């Protein structure tokens, strides 16, 4: 798979950064989009150090206009987008009854509307090119629920249903739309959550048959598979990468 262009959201750190690194190592030019320019630039520098090609663009997925500008910038540089990885996400873990409407809004905007915005903007380009691979990062919480993540799991469940419907609508254009559902991963977001939830990592590790959290590479490898030609007959599917924590 050479000379392809991938647009990755939230690629400034964590899983998104690793997805960008993994795809870049497969000769895919990566557009590293993030709300944090410094983080995005750092990812680009890491890719370039490894001999890959990457560009940073500012993109706030919660705003359609910001997504449109980012996509326009990317296309004016690279001409097209072949792969879209909707990775940007965020959560605050707390009991639902203690959560505030402002938190719900932030969670839904980033995790669900963010993916809707990028798909709305990038799919027409893919249709025109007659080619496209979309990988939406959801979460096991969207498949089996997760205490303390009521609204997040609703958003991720929404991502899963959105993925399936888009897969049906886009199949005639030879565009594959699939979702990766990660289990708990060793990322900056997870560390953030650990700061206000003592013991959460230890408790989860005990429950995971492989007895460890996901490393970003675990997720990135699955994204690389679904965005490759090897997965041309796979669409509308959800793949959990979770060390066996949930088996749907």
């Amino acid at each position, binding site marked *: 798979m050479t000379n392809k262009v991938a647009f990755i959201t939230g690629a400034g750190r964590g899983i998104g950064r690793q997805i960008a690194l993994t795809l870049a190592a497969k000769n895919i030019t990566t557009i590293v989009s993030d709300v944090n320019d410094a983080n995005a630039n750092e990812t680009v520098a890491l890719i370039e150090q490894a001999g890959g090609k990457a560009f940073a663009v500012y993109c706030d997925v919660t705003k359609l206009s910001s997504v449109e500008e980012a996509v326009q910038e990317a296309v004016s540089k690279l001409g097209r987008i072949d792969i879209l990885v909707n990775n940007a996400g965020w959560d605050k873990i707390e009991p639902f009854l203690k959560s505030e409407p402002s938190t719900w809004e932030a969670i839904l905007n980033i995790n669900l509307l963010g993916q809707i915005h990028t798909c709305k903007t990038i799919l027409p380009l893919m249709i025109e090119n007659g080619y496209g691979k979309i990988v939406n990062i959801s979460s096991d919480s969207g498949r089996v629920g997760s205490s303390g993540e009521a609204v997040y799991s609703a958003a991720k469940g929404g991502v899963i249903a959105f993925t*399936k419907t888009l897969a*049906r609508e886009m199949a005639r254009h030879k565009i594959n739309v699939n979702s990766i559902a990660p289990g708990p991963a060793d990322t900056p977001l997870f560390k953030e959550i650990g700061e206000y939830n003592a013991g959460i990592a230890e408790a989860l590790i005990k429950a995971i*048959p492989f007895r460890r959290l996901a490393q970003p590479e675990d997720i990135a490898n699955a994204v*690389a598979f679904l965005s*490759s030609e090897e997965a041309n*007959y796979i669409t509308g599917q*959800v*793949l959990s990468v979770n060390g*066996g924590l949930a088996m*749907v």
Partner: protein
Amino acid sequence: MGNSLNGRTILVTGAANRIGKAIAIAAANEGATIALHYNHSAEQAIITAKEIEQLGSQVACFQANIASLEDVQKMHKAIEEQLGSVFGVINNAGYGQMKSFFDYEPNEWKQEIDVCLNGVLNLAYTFVPSMKEQQEGKFITIVGDSARTGDRKLIVSAAARNGVISFMKSLAQEVGRQHIQCNTVSLGLIDQDDLQIGEDMYRKIVKGYPLQRLGKPGDITGMMQFLLSEQSDWITGQVFSINGGHSMLG
């Protein structure tokens, strides 16, 4: 040709022809040594083995009725003697009849359950202990999407294979701490040029597939390589459909 499976022995059941053959060849292309299992198709097995040899990979054929634990145990011994310990097992062999449940004679369904469900149990019981000793291994089973969605004309094999899905999940939990991955791949209808259906029926079936075609063996081999590789080391107990979008579950 890659080398991701260099030095690994992979057993593919029902590998003499069709999907099993394609998987065996793809694994050989990645450098794997192939234990090629067959039951009745001795001639085809030899032809497939020759094709694999021409790729420069080591291969040996093993006959067994996987419904028989004794047969599977004999096969295990023979493979270890000839090819060394087995890193990955791909449960591809199956047997199903296409007809209404009420057209079966009493107990006629037993053979489907023996091959599709007990066959996988026999393979796991025999091959997974040495994976546990090695602290690594890949145990992969292929089922049909009928096992997830039901199918009035595949009623018995679908039931047996749904049992397999459950078995694979429990097994994944049991052997996770030994770093063994157990996953299930669920297929839509794969066209291997032997579907005995007319053109009208073919068109009607294809309409149910969003990607507007039936599957081909090459659609499956990439997933098998992924699941056999270290790229999937944190994936276990999962069921993954390759079906052109025919069903979208979970």
